[in-house]
């Protein structure tokens, strides 16, 4: 493995690929994984009861008088009323959006636990993505810079290689 070629730049060609560890050996496991993922994610989910659908919406609404709990999770009286109200509206056929709008009109934007994607709230969604993109760009730039420095930089001389191989021979080999 890499011990045979201690920390060099890309001067030497890589050793010949080992057969059996190539992409051929990976094909079955990759195919199996993709097939299982596709099968599992595309198959129908078990049906949810009405109470669970109500609860799913209630989990997106903040309990107005609790401290940062959702109406679905809290046991407060107000939350219970909210759940009953959602159940009533669902049975009248209102959509999730309409139910959320109803609460937003009466309690303000802060009743919804999911910040909206537009307006000021959108910043909280966009900012992490922007930060990650910048971090990736920074990494790529740093690696390019380092590779350029390494390629322009000094190469190992014969004298260096002698030192290294001598040192390696005296160190116990720890890998197969």
């Amino acid at each position: 493995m890499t011990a045979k070629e201690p920390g060099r730049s890309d001067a030497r060609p890589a050793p010949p690929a080992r057969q059996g560890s190539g992409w051929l050996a990976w094909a079955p496991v990759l195919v199996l994984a993709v097939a299982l993922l596709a099968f599992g994610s595309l198959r129908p989910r078990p049906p949810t009861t009405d109470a669970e659908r109500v609860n799913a919406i209630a989990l997106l609404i903040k309990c107005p008088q609790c401290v940062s709990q959702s109406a679905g999770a809290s046991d407060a009286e107000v939350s219970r009323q909210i759940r009953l109200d959602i159940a009533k509206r669902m049975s009248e056929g209102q959509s999730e959006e309409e139910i959320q709008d109803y609460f937003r009109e009466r309690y303000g934007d802060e009743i919804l636990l999911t910040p909206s994607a537009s307006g000021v709230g959108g910043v909280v969604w966009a900012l992490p993505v922007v930060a990650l993109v910048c971090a990736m760009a920074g990494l790529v730039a740093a690696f390019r810079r380092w590779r350029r420095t390494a390629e322009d930089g000094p190469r190992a001389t014969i004298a260096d290689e002698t030192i290294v191989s001598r040192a390696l021979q005296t160190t116990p080999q720890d890998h197969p």
Partner: protein
Amino acid sequence: MNSALGVAGIVLGLLGSICGIVVLAIGLRRGNAALIRSGRSYAWLVLGGAVLCAVAMQRALLTDDFTVSFVHDHSATTTPGVFKFATMWAALEGSILLWTLVLASYTAIVGWRERTRTDDPLVGWALLVMLVVCAFFFLLLAGPANPFGTVAIPEGYDGPGPNPLLQNHILMAFHPPVLYLGYVGFTVPFAYAIGALITGRVGEGWLAGTRRWTLFSWACLTAGIIMGAWWSYEVLGWGGYWAWDPVENASFLPWLTGTAYIHSVMVQERRGMLRVWNLSLLCATFSLTILGTFLTRSGVIESVHAFSESGIGPMILGFFTLIVVVSVGLIGWRGDRLRAPGRIDSPLSREGAFLANNILFGAFAFVVLLGTVFPLIVEASNGERISVGVPYFNRMSTPIGLTLLFLMAVAPVLPWRKASGELLRHRLLVPAWVGAGALAIAVLLGATGLSALLAFLLGGFAAGAAGRQLVLATRRQGWRGLVGRANGGMIVHIGVILIAVAIAASTAYGRQTEMKLAPGQSAEFAGHTFVYRGTEQRLLSNRDVVEATIEIDGSTYAPALSRFRFGSTIIGTPSVASTPRQDVAVTLLELPATADGVVSIRVFVQPLIMWLWIGGGIMVFGTAMAIVPGRRRNPLAAVSAPIEVAGHDEIEVAVDDDPAPSGVPAEV
């Protein structure tokens, strides 16, 4: 008497730390070794002060001395003994007292451990920083968070007792102390880091000296967070274990940066790189502990810990500002000295993986912090009030978590410096089959949902990689293949994978419902039968408990509603039937109006919850294994010193110049 003792302790601690700071500062300024050495004794004074405070407080609590203001406000004669002991940290002032006690203990331990090196300026500066933090907390105790005020009590006064939520479960006696052991523990490596920055000895010496502190603190913080999740699940009874509450985030943020730090230091120890990252992560971890305390206790964010409004907010914020200015200033000042002699040769290498790890954990911490403080920022900018809740955090943390699982699989098999594609393909083949196998089992058991399936696949993949490392290590070294940093780390990874899989499964496949049952009536839900048998009432010293006897699949459980005497708050106690495969939790919503009335319960059925706690235990066990030293061929010298080389800037040369890596098996 207790108040007087307590105030004496505060004064002792405050004066001791201030004198220690002055003496050490003068000694370090003048290079006076004797002065620096004497700084140690002040650490003992500070410890004495803190112990005196704690003993006074416990004495007051256990003897119901209501003349002490904290006991007057928060304890009661009817509180059971263990909870009286735990009342010390049931409110703000006592929590600060606990923090101070742990901090003073750590300061004294540092002073004692370094007793042979106390004229070393780096150690002197570290001790100075710790004394500064001690002084701050004693200042808090002396000022806004003073638990030892004297109160004149009327005849036969009985206090209100601690918040009912905090008297409900024995875990309350353990969760805050363990959490603080971790939280406060990061002060020590931070102090050493500041010392290293100030003295300019930013090599690897201070890292090696603080390695065990960091791991121990990290383990305690992990245990504290897991206990908090357990408490949330078993005691609060809302069916979940993590609500992305500001309090939880305050403990999670330093854990995230701390985890990145303990990984990234390995790169610095081995190759002297990522120094700026490590210092920044460490300073961030410590700053986040202070910031978290500010956010939860000052009341700017609604939080279950903002039990009292107090003047503590501005002081903590001021201290946070000081830490930020000092850390950023020092790192900026020493920037050139922190440049590493080497470069990361290839992104596909162990160093590259650790760098990616830093970025991912940094992103995770950024997201959690942003979500927690965003409502404040929006309100400051245009007065609007919005909420950022669970949906946001879940949606953001899922991709990061999945990527981290993938990284956990690939990183342990990556060699240092450079890897080739076929090396990876060869080493990762078996783990890939393990992953596919885990996915197949899940799919066979009926799993759906892409994120959960990915979690199972990647979790199996990572478990395969960790298992592979452990098998190789034990094959070579026998049982010693399980101790040491690399191997202990693999055990911790297995714990993390268990937790990740449990989170994925319980979130994706958890179900809940509400039921109304008449006595003797049974109902079915999610494959379990529930029969209501009746209610029972019990009168305890501090509360009246009404239990509803519910049979879950034939076994009897008794979820309860307790009415605490003072303030007549009603707190629910859930019942949880746990098996490795599934958890059934039942909470009592409403008691029946009449003796034969209908009871209203809520039922949660979630798979794999037990593996959260098992995984947490394995993480702590793995860290213990990692702290036990493995076979190291060349221990790093305790201190690395800069060496003058003619014509060039000082370079860092570690005393260890064995070309073979130390401390880590080369088959990595």
